[in-house]
């Protein structure tokens, strides 16, 4: 199970100020801490307060700062193609682009970009009409992403399809649909595309957020979830991922399995 650490995001106060003051300290702190906690990727998001003109420079700075202290690859998180490309240009190793939707105009931008920079790409199973309700409709959009991966020459393992988790309080009926969509997405091609989720979305504005997050993660792992954007400071969540990997025979058991799961 691949964990994408969510903390370097301008929506958090300390990162927002770090960006404003061009001060690397908090960015480096969270890069190192998430690496120690067992993240496989560092999500890098400039946040909502950075303007589209400034976003590329900020993305470049955040990527360089994070990779200055961590060996981990970055998940470049932005709706701004120029910002994504700015991050890709300075990225060391294989990046993960977060994300494209299933709109052809967006796919025409991001698939060639991923291929050009040798990056992997997160594809959201949604378009300008929004997030569909049923599993089959999500899978239909996933198929668009798969077809474009094939056409543009992106290896199927480098496509991470996100069937989009929605909050369990206001969109409770989506919960099982996402799980079924994960199963169907894994059957779309051979080798299958990979899958991801913005896990924290499932518990937005709910009580018992950590419990909902880790329970849903394990349920989804069984249905074919390969990765998720999570809070890696949540030890119970990371432990649950480690345990689920053992229980699904994806990682060979040893008594110290909680320790080895976190080693990079």
């Amino acid at each position, binding site marked *: 199970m691949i964990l994408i650490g969510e903390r370097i995001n301008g929506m958090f106060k300390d990162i927002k100020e770090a960006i404003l003051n061009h001060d690397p300290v908090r960015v480096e702190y969270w890069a190192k801490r998430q690496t120690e906690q067992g993240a496989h990727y560092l999500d890098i998001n400039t946040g909502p307060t950075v303007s589209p003109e400034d976003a590329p420079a900020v993305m470049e700075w955040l990527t360089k700062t994070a990779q200055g202290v961590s060996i981990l690859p970055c998940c470049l998180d932005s709706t701004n193609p120029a910002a994504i490309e700015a991050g890709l240009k300075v990225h060391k190793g294989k990046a993960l682009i977060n994300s494209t939707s299933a709109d052809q105009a967006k796919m025409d931008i991001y698939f060639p970009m991923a291929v050009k920079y040798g990056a992997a790409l997160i594809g959201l199973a949604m378009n300008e009409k929004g997030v569909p309700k049923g599993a089959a409709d999500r899978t239909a959009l996933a198929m668009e992403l798969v077809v474009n991966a094939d056409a543009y020459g992106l290896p199927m393992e480098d496509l991470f399809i996100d069937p989009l988790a929605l909050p369990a309080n206001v969109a409770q009926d989506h919960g099982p649909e996402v799980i079924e969509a994960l199963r169907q997405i894994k059957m779309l091609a051979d080798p299958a595309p990979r899958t991801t989720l913005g896990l924290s979305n499932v518990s937005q504005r709910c009580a018992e957020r950590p419990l909902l997050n880790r329970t849903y993660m394990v349920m989804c792992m069984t249905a074919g979830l390969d990765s998720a954007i999570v809070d890696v400071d949540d030890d119970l969540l990371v432990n649950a991922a480690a345990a689920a990997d053992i229980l699904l025979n994806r*990682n*060979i*058991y*040893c*008594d*110290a399995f909680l*320790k*080895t799961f976190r080693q990079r």
Partner: protein
Amino acid sequence: MAVTIVKERWTSKVTEVVIGAEPKAVKLGGETTMPFLHFEGGMPNRPKVALEVFDQQPGDWADVLMAPFADVMGDPVAWAKKNVALGADLVALRLVSAHPDTGNASPADVAETCRKVGAAVDVPLVVIGCGVEEKDAEVLQAAAEALAGKNCLIGSASTNNYKTITAAAMVHGHNVIASSPLDINLAKQLNILITEMNMAANRIVIDPLIGALGYGIEYAYSIMERARMGALMGDKMLAMPVVCFVGQEAWKTKEAKSPTAESPQWGDQAKRSILWEVITAVALAQAGGDLFIMRHPESVKQFNAHLDVMMKAFTY
């Protein structure tokens, strides 16, 4: 009609371990795919073969096995030299005299033998204790010191005595055999315990305690195969090369020991016993074995002839 050959794409590889010193240093491991699949990945290091030397006349070897060594058996130095002449890539020195039941030799005595054998041959040395865990902790410490700087492979460390043996290997610059009883989970855990002592992961060789043909070989095969796939998929704690004690196991069997007169329906003992050792080795090479500790020079010859063919690079 052209056929697309499906190739597996592994994301990781087996660690490379170096035993001994130049110019005769031996490299184990480094594979980037399953055994001998040269069209799909790399097998930079051919499996290596060691012949055994006992530091005391073995009591229970079949005549067929003693014959090639009749002239050297009382003398570990002469025996080691003969093994090199017979084509062994390494010499495996067994410190059986240290066993409480067969001499209970002191660590000092054992150290002297190690020093002499180490000075007599330039191929890398594997040094094996007497098999009694507490005695081996002292004996292997003395052996490691006596052979300091020669980058030997010392064995075997198990969950009960790995601390002293690993410490001795680290201090005197050797590699360590990590032994677990046909249990992949214990094998992984032992590697974790050893690396937690700050022993480098590329100084460990896994001994799964293989069984010979007819005596548990398929269990060993499945563990080795599963561990190898784990290694190729990124499991660092199972990415070590594997050692197979083929000689010891094959020559224990009734099929190897029973004289022709006693078991005529099994055919000539000389041919049969060597076949038993060779087939055990060949099967385990297919499972990913990197280092083979063998006993009969004819078995070594036949196994190497097999490896000559198996190591030929090919593509489709």
